[in-house]
C-alpha cells in the first residue's frame, strides 16, 4: 500500500479563513465536475453529491489532526476531501479506475483511507455511529489523545445505532464528536416526516451535551466542533452537534426531485450559499487566486484519474482475506 500524505494542496494554506474557503471551493468544484462526469455517463454506481453542505465537512475537519479519525456516510466526498483525501484518487475511485482508493470496486459509498484517519464512507445509513464509538474506544485504550468525528444524516438519526452510541459513548466518556448533517431530506422524504423532535435534543437524555449550529457557516461549525473536540481530547466525553444545512442536488445525481419545490432549493442556493459566506471575509484577489489554484488542481486530478485503466475483472477477487 502506497503511503499517503494529505494531498489537497489547499490544506497547506496558513490563514484559517483562506484555507477553509479554499477547501469549500475544492469540494464545490469537485462535486460539480463529478456531476458533469455523471451526466456524461462516466460514473459507475450511484452518486450522492454534497453540494451545499461543504461548510459542515470543512468546518468540522479543518481543526483535526491527521491522526484524528473521521467516520463518514453514503454522502461523503466532502468529508473525504476535508480530511485530506487526494482529489485524484477520489475521482479515480468514483470513476471506477484502478488508481482509486479501493481500485474502483467500492466507489463513492465505500472509500476508506485509514492512513489519513478516514475510516470510510458507508452505504449503510447509521452504521458509522457504533464504528466511530469503537474507534474512539480504541484510541482511548491506546492512550492516544486523538478523537473521532462521525458524520451522519438527520435521516440516520432514526436508526437504533444513534441511541446505542450515545449511551455507550456517554458511559465510557469516549473521545467522540457526533455531527448530524441535517440537510432536511432523507432520500425523497422531508425531515418533518421522519424526524420527531430535534436530533440535537436527543443528547440530553444520555447526559451528553447537544447543540445546534448553522451548517452553512464554516466558522460557526469550526468553533462548535472545535470546542467539542477540545473537550473530547481532554477526557470530557462525547458531544452531539446538529449542523443545519441543505442538500442542493437531488438525493442521487439524476434524481428528478419531484418532492420539493424549486423555490425552496433556489432560496438556499441564493441566500445561504456556504461558499459565498466563506468568501466574504477574503479580499477578492486572493480568493480569485485560490479559485484558480483549485481549478488547476482538480483539472490535473481528473485527468490523472481518467488516465488510469478502468477497474478490471481481475481485481474483483482481491482483498477478501489477509491471505488473498
Amino acid at each position: 500500500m502506497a503511503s499517503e500524505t494529505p494531498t489537497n494542496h489547499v490544506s497547506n494554506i496558513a490563514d484559517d479563513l483562506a484555507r477553509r474557503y479554499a477547501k469549500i471551493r475544492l469540494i464545490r468544484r469537485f462535486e460539480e465536475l463529478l456531476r458533469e462526469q455523471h451526466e456524461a455517463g462516466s460514473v459507475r454506481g450511484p452518486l450522492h453529491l454534497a453540494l451545499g453542505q461543504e461548510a459542515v465537512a470543512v468546518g468540522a475537519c479543518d481543526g483535526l489532526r491527521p491522526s484524528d479519525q473521521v467516520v463518514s456516510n453514503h454522502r461523503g466526498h466532502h468529508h473525504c476531501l476535508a480530511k485530506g483525501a487526494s482529489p485524484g484518487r477520489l475521482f479515480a475511485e468514483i470513476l471506477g479506475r484502478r488508481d482509486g482508493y479501493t481500485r474502483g470496486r467500492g466507489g463513492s459509498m465505500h472509500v476508506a483511507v485509514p492512513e489519513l484517519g478516514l475510516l470510510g464512507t458507508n452505504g449503510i445509513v447509521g452504521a458509522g455511529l457504533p464504528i466511530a464509538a469503537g474507534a474512539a474506544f480504541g484510541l482511548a485504550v491506546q492512550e492516544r489523545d486523538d478523537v473521532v468525528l462521525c458524520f451522519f444524516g438527520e435521516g440516520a438519526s432514526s436508526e437504533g445505532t444513534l441511541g446505542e452510541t450515545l449511551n455507550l459513548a456517554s458511559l465510557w466518556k469516549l473521545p467522540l464528536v457526533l455531527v448530524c448533517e441535517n440537510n432536511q431530506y432523507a432520500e425523497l422524504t422531508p425531515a418533518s416526516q421522519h424526524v420527531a423532535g430535534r436530533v440535537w435534543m436527543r443528547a440530553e437524555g444520555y447526559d451528553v451535551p447537544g447543540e445546534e449550529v448553522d451548517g452553512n457557516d464554516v466558522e460557526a461549525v469550526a468553533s462548535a466542533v472545535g470546542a467539542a473536540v477540545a473537550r473530547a481530547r481532554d477526557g470530557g466525553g462525547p458531544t452531539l452537534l446538529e449542523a443545519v444545512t441543505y442538500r442542493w442536488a437531488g438525493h442521487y445525481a439524476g434524481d428528478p426531485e419531484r418532492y420539493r419545490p424549486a423555490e425552496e432549493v433556489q432560496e438556499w442556493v441564493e441566500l445561504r450559499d456556504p461558499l459565498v459566506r466563506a468568501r466574504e471575509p477574503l479580499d477578492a484577489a486572493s480568493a480569485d487566486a485560490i479559485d484558480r489554484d483549485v481549478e488547476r488542481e482538480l483539472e490535473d486530478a481528473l485527468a490523472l484519474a481518467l488516465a488510469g485503466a478502468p477497474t478490471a475483472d481481475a481485481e474483483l477477487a482481491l482483498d477478501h482475506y489477509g491471505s488473498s
Partner: protein
Amino acid sequence: MSTTAAVRSLKFWQALNEALVEEMERDAAVVLVGQDVAAAGGTYGVTRGLATRFGEARVRDTPISEAALAGLGVGSAAVGLRPIVEIMFFDFTTLAMDQIVQQAAKFRYFTSGRPLPVVFRTMCGAGAGMGAQHSQSLEAWFCHVPGLTVVMPSGPADAKGLLKSAIRLDDPVLFIETAALLTARGDVPDVDDHLVPLGVADVKLPGEDVTLVALGRYVDRALAAAEQLAGDGVSVEVVDPRTLQPLDLATLLRSVRKTGRLVVAHEAPVPFGVGAEICAAVAEQAFDALRAPVRRVGAPFTHVPVSQELAELRVPSVDDIVAAVQATIR
C-alpha cells in the same frame, strides 16, 4: 407453464404493483409500510399510486429504522392486519433479523397456533450498481429458519401470482424481488385473480438429459443456456423452485430421477447457498438416479463491486451455465 387464457405484457414492477393493488382492494387489512413507498411510490415504482388510492392510513412512509419497520409488521399482524413491509435492499435485512427470525417466525409457536400474516418484501442482487452493501442475495439464510416462507419469482407472471398468495398466507413470508428483473417484461395471465401457489416449483422447460434448477433471474439465463444446448442435441429441463422454503423437493427429485443429472444456478455465492441444499437433498434422496456429479453455478465467494459491468462480470453467464451442463454429460 402454458395457459390458454389471454395475457398482457407487463414489466415485473408493474406485475407486483397490480398484485398489491388487487390484494389491497380485496382486503382492508392489507397495509404497506416502508421507506419512500408512499409519496414517492417506491424507489423502483413498485408501490406507485398506492398511497393515493388507499390513503395514508394504509400506505405509509417510515423513518429509516429497519428494525422498527419489521416490528411494525410483527405487531400489526398480531392485532389483525396483514402488513406488507418493504425493506428496500436485501442487505438491509441485516438490521431487522431479530424481528424477522426471532419474533415473526416464532410467533405461531409461541401462541400455539395464532397466525402472523406479514410479508417482508425486499430487493436482491447486483444490477442496481450499488456495490457490496446493496447487492447481496441472502436467501439461503432465511431458508434455514423454521417458520418462514421464502419466495423468489423469476418473471412478472410468477411475481404477481406469488405475491398475491404470499399476502394471503397466514404466516410470515420473505418475498424477494430481483433488482435486475424489475424492468423486464413478460406475459401475465389476464384473469380476475391470478394466483400462483406457494411451495410449488415450475418446470419452465421440459427436457430429458439434464435437470437445470435456476433461481430468480437465473431462470432466463438457464432458458437461454438450454436453447443453446438444444442446438447441440442436449435436452435440458429447466426447473424454477419459485418458493425456496419450503422447497418443492418432489418436483426437483422427479426431474432428476428422469434426467440423472443436476445443475443448480443462482446469483448468490456458491458456498452455503441454496444450491448446496438442492444438491445435498438430491444426493441424499435420488442418489441412485444420478449419473454424473452435481454441479453448482453461482458467484465466486467475493463481494459485489460497485459498477454494474463489473458486478455482471462477477456472476455466472449463460456460457458458464452451458459449460456446467456440458460437464455433467461428458
